[in-house]
């Protein structure tokens, strides 16, 4: 841990208690979405398009409906038709019409795997058999599978009738859903004044978040015509909002209970199965459970956008960057939203550059509709900029760390989109990298023939959103505090939130008993994503705890019949300021407090915290004959503001780094020319396994954010940003070849070596 100023001594924060949900998760007792059992439960299955691009001429479900054991069949006819109204919140972007059409195709299928119908039956096998009896009449169209194809002037138009936005103008008949420019200063002047100008372009294949738990949803209607949904989601309130829109219901008629969630990384923010379960349940009058197959997960749920990013930098002879430009083209999939705004915010985020110009294209292609994947848009642009910086340093003989320090973004630096940074910690991360054991260790060059080692370094950034959270506290008669909140727990946030409450209350972390509750039981809480949970829900817990202390002091004053200003609560002890006889522990008070339950709650709607910066260092060993790259040493350095539970912060760094390593070396959607993913299984979609990796060292830098009482900054997303360029830079260091496409798989490396 590397901490900066504002050192504080905490009792609970910074310790490593066992997480509150841990016992259930190591014993198999924890209930994930697929585990739910309800009386009379029946099973659903989804029919998906075999074609990447086709018009639906007719769907005949009559044979399926007749099959014995089938209880309900549905198509898009069973959903209200929605307008092209932009959804309000940034987390659930895009239009309502597209939301509905992604759930169940209306007139056209946009990707192989696009849902066209669904069935509920007494058992899963009958449901799947019924799918085979649904006759869909398709008019197959030519698919468009990457940005170049989509932007070609003769490309078939995928989203007919869609009004695109090209620099503020409405445009029809285009596959570019959004064309945006951000610029500051004068890049032409900046480039002309530069002593050295270099540009590169990177090309990236589509990848998937890869969470081990497939999507699931179970629904039942009650006697008041409300639908109750159990699902594994990153945001139960987002599910409620989306389902109510798709089904045309008031939000109060939808209750969502979040089950435990087996990974999300952004991919479990959109809805897929929930409206289907709801409609099938209404039609069959039974509770209906739907679980995706692994193939469905790959072929039908939002992957991370592939695409192309071009970056150009102009530097002076001392190594100061004078100008920078970028052209970002990312695949949105079948419906808009490819995260180009986020990519634009991130591309030059690590540098202080006076003149910048960023052009972004959100491109519709016949692939599943893209969803967020841990810092969406940032890994793609980091690959471009961080390898370009490496290239410049290599050509000019500059130290890559010193170059980054010379151009570092800090508080007050103007970002490429305009706003000034609040307090951030990139400089401290670079310092930590410079001092790290890894950076100062000698790269082992005593290797068998054919093997080479190389070292790479890269930085990365992701911002932290704030948004809404609510926390409820209730004092139990045994002196523990029940904490209810609405942030689904994907990686230990329940513990981190409880620890923040425990710190304020001055009690052990174990004495706060957290529950993640349904949408009827807590105030609106935004998604567990955007690196917001520990920050925003933690902040709500902090505020609620302070209010609880006020409640306790008031009731103690009542109990002792003294003025409330006389009472002080500290670290689990309540006492009178002037009368030393009046003293009790929280437990004693809780056992006998006057005037009703002792409770408090707090709501927040926070602005973002200053973002999280990371610097990664990797040593790779590469076999020149096979092209196989092994990561032999890896260090992830990141500014986390304040590590509430350091083990889980370290876990975010290690997990994100691993996903980035997989993205860099092996993962891709291997597409056929007719738009099918040919490797839609874990066998061929090659994610990192335990054998692929060394121990991943972490250095937690703590530059407290200005926006949170403990200085918390979100940490979850940044770790996936540096790995791809780190690995590419390491390969260049080892072999002198610049890999500018992902994945940097063995065959690509061999090809590059041949062309060297």
């Amino acid at each position, binding site marked *: 841990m590397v901490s900066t100023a504002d050192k504080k001594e905490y009792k609970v924060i910074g310790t490593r208690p066992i997480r509150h949900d841990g016992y259930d998760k190591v014993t198999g007792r924890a209930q994930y979405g697929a585990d739910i059992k309800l009386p009379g439960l029946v099973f659903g299955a989804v029919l998906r398009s075999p074609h990447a691009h086709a018009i639906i001429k007719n769907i005949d479900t009559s044979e399926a409906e007749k099959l014995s054991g089938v209880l309900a069949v549905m198509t898009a006819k069973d959903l209200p038709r929605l307008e092209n109204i*932009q*959804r*309000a*919140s*940034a*987390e659930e*972007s895009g239009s309502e019409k597209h939301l509905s059409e992604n759930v169940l195709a209306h007139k056209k299928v946009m990707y192989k795997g696009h849902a066209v119908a669904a069935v509920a039956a007494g058992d899963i096998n009958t449901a799947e058999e019924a799918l085979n009896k649904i006759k869909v009449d398709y008019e197959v169209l030519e698919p468009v599978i990457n940005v170049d194809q989509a932007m070609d002037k003769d490309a078939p138009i995928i989203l007919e009738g869609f009004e695109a936005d090209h*620099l*503020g103008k409405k445009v029809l008949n285009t596959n570019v859903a959004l064309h*945006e*420019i*951000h*610029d500051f200063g004068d890049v032409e002047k900046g480039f002309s004044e530069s002593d050295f100008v270099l540009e590169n372009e990177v090309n990236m294949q589509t990848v998937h978040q890869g969470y081990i738990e497939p999507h699931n949803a179970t629904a039942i209607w009650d006697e008041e015509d409300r639908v109750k949904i159990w699902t594994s989601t990153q945001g139960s309130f987002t599910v409620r909002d989306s389902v109510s829109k798709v089904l045309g219901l008031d939000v109060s008629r939808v209750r969502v209970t979040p089950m435990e969630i087996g990974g999300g*990384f*952004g*991919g479990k*923010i959109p809805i897929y199965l929930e409206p289907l379960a709801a409609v099938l349940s209404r039609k069959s009058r039974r509770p209906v459970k739907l679980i995706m197959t692994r193939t469905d997960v790959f072929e039908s749920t939002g992957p991370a956008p592939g695409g192309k990013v071009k970056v150009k930098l102009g530097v002076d002879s001392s190594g100061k960057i004078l100008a920078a430009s970028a052209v970002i083209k990312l695949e949105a999939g079948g419906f808009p939203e490819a*995260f180009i*705004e*986020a990519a634009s*915010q991130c591309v030059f985020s690590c540098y202080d550059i006076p003149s910048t110009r960023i052009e972004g294209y959100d491109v519709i292609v016949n692939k599943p509709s893209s*969803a*967020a*994947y*841990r*810092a*969406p848009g940032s890994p793609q642009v980091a690959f471009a900029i961080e390898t370009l910086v490496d290239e410049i340093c290599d050509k000019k003989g500059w130290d890559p760390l010193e170059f980054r320090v010379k151009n570092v973004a800090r508080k007050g630096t103007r970002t490429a*989109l*305009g*706003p*000034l*940074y*609040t307090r951030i910690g990139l400089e401290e991360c670079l310092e930590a990298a410079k001092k790290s054991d890894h950076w100062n260790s000698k790269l082992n060059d005593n290797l068998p023939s054919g093997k080479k080692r190389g070292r790479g370094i890269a930085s990365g950034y*992701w*911002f*932290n*959103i*704030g*948004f809404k959270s609510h926390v409820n506290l209730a004092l139990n008669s045994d002196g523990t505090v029940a904490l209810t909140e609405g942030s689904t727990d994907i990686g230990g946030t329940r513990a981190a939130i409880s620890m923040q409450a425990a710190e304020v209350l001055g009690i052990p972390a174990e004495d706060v008993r957290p529950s993640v509750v349904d949408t009827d039981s807590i105030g609106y809480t935004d998604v567990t*994503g*955007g*690196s*917001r949970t520990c920050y925003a829900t933690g902040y709500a817990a902090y505020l609620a705890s302070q209010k609880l202390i006020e409640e306790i002091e008031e009731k103690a004053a009542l109990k002792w019949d003294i003025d409330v200003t006389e009472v002080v609560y500290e670290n689990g002890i309540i006492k009178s300021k002037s009368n030393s006889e009046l003293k009790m522990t929280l437990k004693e008070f809780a056992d006998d407090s006057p005037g009703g339950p002792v409770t408090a709650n707090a709501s927040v*709607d*926070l*602005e*973002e915290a200053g973002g999280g910066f990371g610097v990664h260092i990797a040593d790779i060993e590469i076999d020149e004959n096979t092209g196989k790259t092994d990561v032999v040493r890896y260090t992830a350095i990141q500014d986390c503001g304040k590590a509430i539970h350091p083990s889980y912060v370290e876990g975010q760094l290690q997990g994100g780094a691993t996903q980035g390593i997989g993205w860099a070396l092996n993962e891709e959607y291997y597409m056929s020319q007719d738009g099918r993913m040919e490797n839609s299984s874990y066998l061929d979609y090659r994610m990192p396994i335990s054998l692929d990796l060394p121990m991943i060292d972490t250095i937690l830098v703590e530059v407290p954010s200005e*926006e949170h009482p403990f200085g918390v900054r979100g940490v979850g*997303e940044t770790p996936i940003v540096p790995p791809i360029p780190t690995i590419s830079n390491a390969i260049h260091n080892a072999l002198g070849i610049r890999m500018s496409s992902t994945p940097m798989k063995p065959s690509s490396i061999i090809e590059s070596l041949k062309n060297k």
Partner: protein
Amino acid sequence: MASVYLPYKLRHFAMGSSPIDVDGKTLNELINNLEKLFPGIKLELVENGKLKPGLSAVIDGRATRLGLIHKINENSEVHFLPAIAGG
């Protein structure tokens, strides 16, 4: 006077100049004053009495959660940008 930075696609309202100095105690007042300077710009920024969906107003480095009622200081910087989130 606050400094208002317009996004690329709205700069034509101000003949390309950015930032623009505008008065306003709240974001609502500021936008109304912008409208006085550049008629038609309000339609691009406000819809149904709120900031347009997908649009964010970043005031002194942070995207406002209060929307049009957000108070603007003497030397505030206001940027109108696309709203972004995460995963």
